[in-house]
């Protein structure tokens, strides 16, 4: 049953990156939109994510619950040594969720919307940046539980070149996912072209940031290159991701709705696979030693009941979630948003 729990953990992290990431990306796209078009972008964006963003957000909660119930050592180590980036990410989550809902549910449209918009856009950038920093720090080998001063223990574990570059890469990836997603939600050709340009820009940004990640890994001594390029799985994942990227642009030019979305999602999954496969089951790589999903589990009865709870839960959640997406896809009329 341990495997069930680990699969659920992996799946909820991946789904959060895909769906939650696209939600964040929507805010990042808004940030990079000229003033003239911003209101149109906001409307498209609201119709696209209004009904589903709360559900998208739940994957994070599922992942964190799995961690603290099933892998308490991992959860408490992260909580202690990554306290600061976690707290900043949380503030980002609060700011983003509330600003999004406030700007829609404020019955009067006035100056206060400028505040909601700024907060929404700013936190849409900060939150994935810190999510990425957290992911980078987890594998960076910089976290040092034996450190004897504040900065080494609580700051440099996450504030380093590698982690920050992973953060920036994550931001670009979220923007890319959102732009690809929004292309097919556009109301007219003009908007469509805008989102295609955004996708191209974010694609470039992700390439650039990805390059920096490898550079930073080399400088900070993270064996990223070895994980990705010295394993068959890693190389295959990179090859398929590249093919998927080419195919994405091909299908965009053919105005296909679903293929670009699926392929863009597949690329993210493949990138995650390439990076994590080689050091699985190590979830956190510390300065000395690792925390592994196999060696640092909760006792058996806990893992069993957790697995059953997750399996039972998914019987309810998955069909309902599917029907939610199915019901609200491609809805662009104003009625639904009142």
């Amino acid at each position, binding site marked *: 049953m341990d495997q069930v729990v680990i699969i659920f953990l992996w799946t909820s992290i991946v789904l959060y990156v895909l769906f939650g990431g696209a939600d964040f990306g929507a805010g990042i796209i808004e940030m990079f939109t000229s003033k003239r078009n911003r209101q149109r972008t906001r409307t498209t964006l609201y119709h696209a994510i209004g009904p589903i963003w709360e559900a998208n*957000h739940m994957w994070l909660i599922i992942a964190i619950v799995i961690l*603290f*119930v099933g892998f308490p050592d991992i959860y408490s180590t*992260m909580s202690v040594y990554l306290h600061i980036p*976690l707290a900043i990410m949380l503030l980002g989550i609060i700011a983003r969720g509330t600003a999004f809902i406030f700007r829609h549910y404020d019955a009067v449209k006035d100056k206060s919307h400028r505040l909601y918009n700024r907060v929404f856009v700013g936190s849409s950038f900060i939150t994935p940046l810190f999510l990425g920093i957290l992911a980078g720090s987890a594998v960076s080998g910089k976290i040092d539980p034996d450190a004897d001063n504040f900065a080494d223990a609580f700051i440099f574990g996450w504030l380093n070149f590698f982690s920050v570059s992973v953060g920036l890469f994550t931001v670009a990836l979220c923007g890319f996912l959102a732009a690809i997603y929004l292309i097919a939600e556009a109301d007219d050709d003009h908007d469509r072209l805008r989102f295609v340009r955004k996708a191209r820009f974010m694609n470039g940004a992700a390439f650039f940031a990805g390059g920096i990640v490898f550079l930073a890994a080399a400088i900070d001594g993270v064996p990223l290159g070895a994980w990705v390029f010295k394993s068959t799985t890693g190389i295959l994942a990179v090859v398929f991701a590249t093919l998927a990227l080419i195919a994405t642009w091909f299908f965009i030019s053919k105005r296909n709705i679903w293929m670009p979305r699926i392929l863009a999602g597949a690329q993210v999954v493949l990138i995650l696979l390439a990076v994590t496969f080689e050091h699985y089951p190590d979830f956190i790589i510390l300065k000395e030693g690792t925390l592994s999903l196999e060696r640092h589990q909760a006792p058996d009865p806990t893992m069993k009941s957790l697995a059953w709870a997750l399996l039972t839960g998914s019987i309810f959640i998955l069909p309902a*979630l599917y029907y939610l997406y199915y019901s609200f896809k491609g809805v662009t009329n104003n009625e639904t948003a009142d």
Partner: protein
Amino acid sequence: MDDLLAARLQMALSLGFHIIYACIGMVMPFFMAVSHFLWIRRKEAVFKDLTKAWSKGVAIFFATGAVSGTVLSFELGLLWPEFMKHAGPIFGMPFSLEGTAFFIEAIALGFFLYGWDRFNPWFHWVTGVVVGISGLASGILVVSANAWMNSPAGFDYENGSYFNIDPIAAMFNDAWLYQALHMTLAAFVATGFAVAGVHALMMLKKKNLLFHRHAFLIAMIFGSVAAILQPISGDLSAKDVAERQPAKLAAMEALFKSETSAPLLIGGIPDEKNERVNYAIELPGMLSFLVHGNFYDEVKGLDTVPKEDHPPVLITHIAFQVMVGIGVLLMSLSLLFFLAFRWKTLLDKRWFLLLFAIATPMGFIAVEAGWTVTEVGRQPWIIWGIMRTADAVTPMPGIRYSFYIFTAVYVLLTIIVLFLLKRQIQAVPRLYASAEEKINP
């Protein structure tokens, strides 16, 4: 401010903030379901408008509650890593189930808020009910986890290690049922009175009378029934606490020394240094009666536990008095409300509406006070009798800065939410045609 105090204050602040949003998010869907039902059945536009108006409030509260709940799931570790390391695998079961309930709530809410005129009306109605039921389930599960901290079960403990873990037994610990019952009723009382109070205020201003009268009646029916049941549940809880956590009950009642024919105190300010209570009204034998069912038996005081295990008496006692006082007040108002069914003109009386308008925040003050009783009364333990709060706190220094930042954020959010609600309420006549309808004499 030392780190332990800062961590406790930050946790208290986050929970105190979240609890309001969680209560509203789990109770309002039931009010909406009634009004929505009346719209589908009777086709009177006022009920559709009322449902829609309420649903906007719920959307605001749900979103805020969801993010503040997410923050809590991280804060458990950020502030109490040592606690979570050991407790996570034991009391995690309700949280894993709560994840499902919360997820379903979010999905159903998506259907409900965006589903007007898109689905079969009854399917749409059911999604609203599902929001309420899964919200209620979430609330009960989280309270069950808290009950475990008061009444640890489902493991053996020796020399600092925890073994023979049974997550199911931990979930169904001795306290869960009483705590869940008390908290659920409290959510209905607090939300019912808060919503009814706002609408009473609008009726006092003679605005959109029909609209606000329907709203007032629906909210108060839920609120009053719960307020009348609450003392029974409170009595069950108190008896349970007396048995399992005598030190907590002693702190609630400021009973420094064990006594036969123990008196019940009304009010009073405990003086912890000299172990006595000033300015209290004593009802002789009543505490013995409430705990044991007769006026003579001994009630255990704080002298039965070592000094280092005493909870803070002043805060616990005052919070308890506030909770019980408001509970009695709201119960009386509920009885008054039932009179309005017999004498309908009461609903037009200014003094009647004024009473309910004044009571708007009372239920939530009682909820916060009750939460203070159960949390502060558990100190110095984070897991009753097993782990001290001081041993659970994070080793990271400087928690006070985190506390200041989160305080600022929560204060700001509260101000914005109140501001938005005010604007929503002011917009009622503009948005809904039916709001202008007059009451038929």
